[in-house]
């Protein structure tokens, strides 16, 4: 079969593993400030890994789409280092704080602009808002088959065959191309790119197209913002932690006593 053209949607978010002391909720401004570097949302990394595995088997091309008010190509170049072929940034001040339908709308405009594609992959949900909507809505907007929660993705005979995680185990499903699949972490971690390779890539000039709303139909009335009424810090989850000190042996003895008390 012909070599598949794969589009991976990757969102840039603040490191979700940052300690909570680095997260500040500004109630007045209704803003969450995360003092942590930006990363590619973890499930989107899984989606990219799935795409790279398909490419390893069948060849083809992987295009990564990332959207936001301001997207860092330094963060996203990692996708190229790992095995993607092209990166397109969808960047516009108007893209800030959009609700899910609007995000999916912008992505669908960009994907239609790319024209030829066989497979669109997204993470099952983003690591910041954890809404899990955009991928599924995008499939609806593109009017293509939609499969969620993939743990393995293969393409053959013009169809995509997916093992999808379901509550009792997994389900094997199949759909004609083009199709959209949302990817779960059972697919596996995005391969590590050695720094030497990364360094070369970060230094090399690389054409990275940036598309704003004007390049995507200029349909501003389709974009709606999330309507945040209030933002509050969470209830305190902290407990008074007793640190068990001493030599390893003493620590083990005290911890054993703690565990035995559970009886």
């Amino acid at each position, binding site marked *: 079969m012909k070599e598949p053209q794969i589009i991976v949607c990757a969102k840039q978010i603040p490191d979700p*593993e940052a300690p909570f002391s680095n997260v500040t909720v500004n109630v007045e401004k209704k803003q969450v400030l995360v003092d942590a570097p930006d990363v590619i949302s973890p499930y989107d990394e899984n989606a990219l890994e799935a795409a790279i595995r398909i490419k390893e088997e069948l060849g083809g091309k992987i295009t990564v789409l990332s959207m936001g008010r301001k997207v860092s190509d330094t963060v996203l170049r990692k996708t190229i280092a790992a095995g993607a072929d092209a990166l397109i940034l969808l960047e516009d001040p108007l893209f800030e704080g959009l609700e899910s339908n609007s995000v999916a709308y912008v992505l669908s405009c960009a994907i239609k602009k790319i024209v030829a594609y066989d497979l669109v992959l997204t993470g099952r949900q983003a690591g910041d808002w954890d809404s899990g909507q955009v991928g599924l809505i995008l499939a609806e907007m593109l009017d293509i088959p939609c499969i*969620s929660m993939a743990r393995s993705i293969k393409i053959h005979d013009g169809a995509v065959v997916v093992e999808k995680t379901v509550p009792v185990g997994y389900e094997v499903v199949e759909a004609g191309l083009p199709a959209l699949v949302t990817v779960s*972490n*059972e697919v596996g971690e995005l391969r590590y790119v050695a720094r030497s390779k990364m360094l070369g890539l970060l230094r090399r000039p690389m054409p990275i197209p940036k598309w704003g709303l004007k390049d995507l139909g200029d349909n501003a009335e389709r974009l709606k913002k999330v309507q945040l009424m209030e*933002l509050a810090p969470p209830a305190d989850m902290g*407990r008074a932690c007793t640190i068990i000190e001493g030599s390893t042996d003493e620590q083990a003895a005290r*911890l054993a006593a*703690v565990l035995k008390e559970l009886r």
Partner: protein
Amino acid sequence: MSEILLLVESKDGVLDKKTLELIRGASGLGKELGIGASAVVVGNQTAQLAEEVASFGLAKVYKLEHPLLEGFKPDAWVGALEWLCKQIAPRIVLMSHSFVGKEVAPRLACRLNTELTTDCLALKIDPNDGALVRTKPIYGGNAIAALRCEGLPQMVTVRKNAFEPAEQVTAKSDIFDMAPAIDESILRVKSIKTVPEQVVELDKANVVISGGRGIVDKDDFQMLTDLAAAISKALGNVVMIGCSRPVVDKCWMTSDRQVGLTGTIIAPDAYVAVGISGAIQHLVGMIRSKKIVAINTDPSCNMFKVADYGVVADYKDLIPALLKKLEG
């Protein structure tokens, strides 16, 4: 625009507890708005389930029946629910934030040209204009957002335990047969087979021992297994092995063992976190454990902030020593 519609879910013919919670939630909202709350049962043969649902004091129960709705085929369910919503034009649609709800709700919202909020912890009505105000944790629970959305129906998926389960009443709801206008053409994804797997039910354990990114080698999980055996022997209870997300990413564990926002949410008697720094998405899954023990080399990690007992140590040194003490 006269009713609140909720989607009924069941497993092996038994009504899902989350659905009972939705019934309570929908009834409350309905009372506040002065409109009725209804439920829709989707499937091929739904009479029995519909009868059961009809005993919880709802205004109406819709039986959305069609041979294509046998089992959960997302394409068919979305198509049928789209048809129903266009027929009855509900003002609010509620679903559980479950396997079914997570897939159906976004696609349905898109087709109905409305906005959806997923994974809500609480719902209320804005007294000014009757809009549905949705409370949702964001940034893994580091902030709690109150949101409102455009469009009708007002749609949400609701996290489990957001409401108390509804109780049965003597009056029966009216049941309406609805035959959706759908056919084979809406099925774009073909199910080949479902493969059942042995699934660990972490919520049945008394003690869960979880490993995280700090576990440097897959084989080291044997240490955790040994520890589980030793604790089980010493205490005579059920001890299971869980993990945090990076371990599943590495394909060292299957996702049924993953504790956290996108895994299982548990509240065992004791939770032992080994080499888990405590990303908030993980903490959401285990914070309600009665006792939390953290073992980590980094004294400042989040896990120590939520633990009752902390040991700053390398698990590779500590666990062998601990095994000796438990056996001794």
